[in-house]
């Protein structure tokens, strides 16, 4: 359980690094935004899942659940807002 938890954490962290790498590798702001939101969400999700395995107690799970909910709600909005801002206007 512990090992799996840490493995998920490491995987998540690695994915975060990959997302950061994406900033440098992807061609334009909109594409980079995909990296910043989607990969990062997955990374955080993996880390939180790992943490849930590492700390199997309700006090932790409640918080992890709340955090996941908040992230799931805010990340797409952030993504939308960023994309909206970075994209050329429709009427351009």
């Amino acid at each position, binding site marked *: 359980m512990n090992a799996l938890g840490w493995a998920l954490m490491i995987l998540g962290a690695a994915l975060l690094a990959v997302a950061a790498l994406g900033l440098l590798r992807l061609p334009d702001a909109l594409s980079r935004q995909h990296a910043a939101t989607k990969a990062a969400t997955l990374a955080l999700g993996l880390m939180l899942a790992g943490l849930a395995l590492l700390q199997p107690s309700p006090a932790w799970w409640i918080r992890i659940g709340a955090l996941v909910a908040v992230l799931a709600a*805010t990340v797409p909005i952030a993504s*939308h807002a960023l994309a*909206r801002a970075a994209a050329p206007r429709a009427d351009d």
Partner: protein
Amino acid sequence: MNAERSVVLETTVAFFYWVMLAASLWLLLRGHNAPGGGFVAALVAVAATAAHALVFGVAAARARLPFGPLGLSALGLALAAASGLPALLLGQAFLTHLWGELAVGGLALKISTVLIFDLGVALCVWGALGGFCLRLLETVR
């Protein structure tokens, strides 16, 4: 910031405004035992106010601040200062906090002047920083 309206942001911010205020209250109430407290609570509230202002306009956000931003701030400061006054009546030093138990339906609630102090901190900071953000946002509308 005069971006044109977005239904997504309007819907979510209208919802999140209350979520953030609830979170702010939560941080305020449990600050004595876990991370949080008046200042952070206020910052979350300020964030809510600012987000509301961004999406629905400054006037709408200001209308949601009771007493107006600076009045709120003054109220907060007065509350925080006043929380230290009861102790003076008991002959103790200023800001000596008093604790009491309040029985509400079989639940023993700890109430104290500390909470008033923290509430004062939160209101003061919310009003001041929220008001400042609103005023600043107004300049670029």
